[in-house]
């Protein structure tokens, strides 16, 4: 039995975003969607996390932060980019300090489309990311 698929602990990082996707990520924890059904926990600590959930785009200032968070996570780990901003840079793409989506900083496993991404889609993305945890 693959236990790491039954207990995904999630670290959420918010880059340059409008906070729309962040609110949807938090909505996943509410009674309506309740990701804890799948054993998921929203942890604030990269050392405990299995999945890094990134919302918002990467800019000159947060690129090193995201890279450090990623490096602090123990293997096996997966990265989910949530929303248009984290996938490509979204509406912030042309900004002077924006480097692009999450992929500008670290390797991304799953892209979740949407602006904002729906909670169902985010949960689906996390479940897909579980297959990447080897």
């Amino acid at each position, binding site marked *: 039995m693959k236990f*790491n698929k039954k207990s995904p602990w999630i670290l959420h990082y918010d880059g340059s975003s409008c906070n729309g996707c962040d609110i949807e990520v938090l909505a996943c924890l509410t009674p309506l969607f309740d990701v804890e*059904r799948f054993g998921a926990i929203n942890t604030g600590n990269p050392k405990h996390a299995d999945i890094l959930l990134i919302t918002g785009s990467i800019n000159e200032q947060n690129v090193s932060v995201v890279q450090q968070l990623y490096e602090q996570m123990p293997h096996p780990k997966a990265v989910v980019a949530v929303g248009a901003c984290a996938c490509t840079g979204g509406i912030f793409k042309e900004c002077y300090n924006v480097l692009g989506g999450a992929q500008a900083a670290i390797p991304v496993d799953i892209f979740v489309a949407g602006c904002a991404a729906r909670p169902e889609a985010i949960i689906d993305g996390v479940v897909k990311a579980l297959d990447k945890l080897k």
Partner: protein
Amino acid sequence: MTWVLSVLQVLGILIFVPIIGGLLTGVDRIISARMQSRKGPPLLQPFYDVFKLLKKEATTVNHATGYFVTGSVLFNILTVVLFCMGVDLLLCIFAFTLGCVLFVLAGYSSHSPYSFVGSERELIQIMCYEPMILIMAFGYYRVVESFNVGDAFTQNAPAIVKLPLIFLGLVYVLTIKLRKSPFDLSMSHHGHQEIVKGITTELTGTSLALLEISHWFETVFALGLVYLFFVYSAPFSWAVAAAICLVVFFLEIIIDNGFARVKWKFALTSSWIVIIVTGGANLMYLSLF
């Protein structure tokens, strides 16, 4: 042949106590979720978490941390084994305290400001509950006339009859030991962020898994103390005591969900007031009558 029996007994304890502790934690998570009108994780979720953590990569900041965590877990296990074998209650309490101290050292050894704060808070928490546990041992001695855990089963009446106030005080400080809100200052077992995770901040993989298992043993020991108040020579009291343990555990879950985390000063002063009032009054009663 007696030693074969003892070995089997210890093996039984080592197998069943973590199962009971894990199931209690699972039930705790489901009941907490239902109280928040969520569905909650599967019953076996704590076991999934631990098995996952065991398989994860272990990163260590300081190698000493691993030894401290392992030591802490071993002493917690020893506590429960001693307790279930029915030996001296004081011995259990001292082994238990040593486990707690090693846990604090684990936090200090990782050099992270977060675990430093966690360790400091854990020390305060030890200050909060330790006097009550010692008073309980003292009261137990006055009633049973022996420190042996096993002697509770030979009494004519349960200890609660003579130690009602000490029992109340103990339930108050058990909230601290079970790491429940409002007293989960140093290390919360919920999916919390940042400082409330305290000592565990730098721990990964195996260490974290061991700590989780250690908490299961702690939970069983804490409820074991409650159990001691209600057993006596009548066999039916064993079941009644077990049922009361579950009621107390449920009560702690309600408190956990109903109260916001307090500051350490309140935790310290309130628990000392409770200890002095309940423990003092009860011991005075015992010495007078």
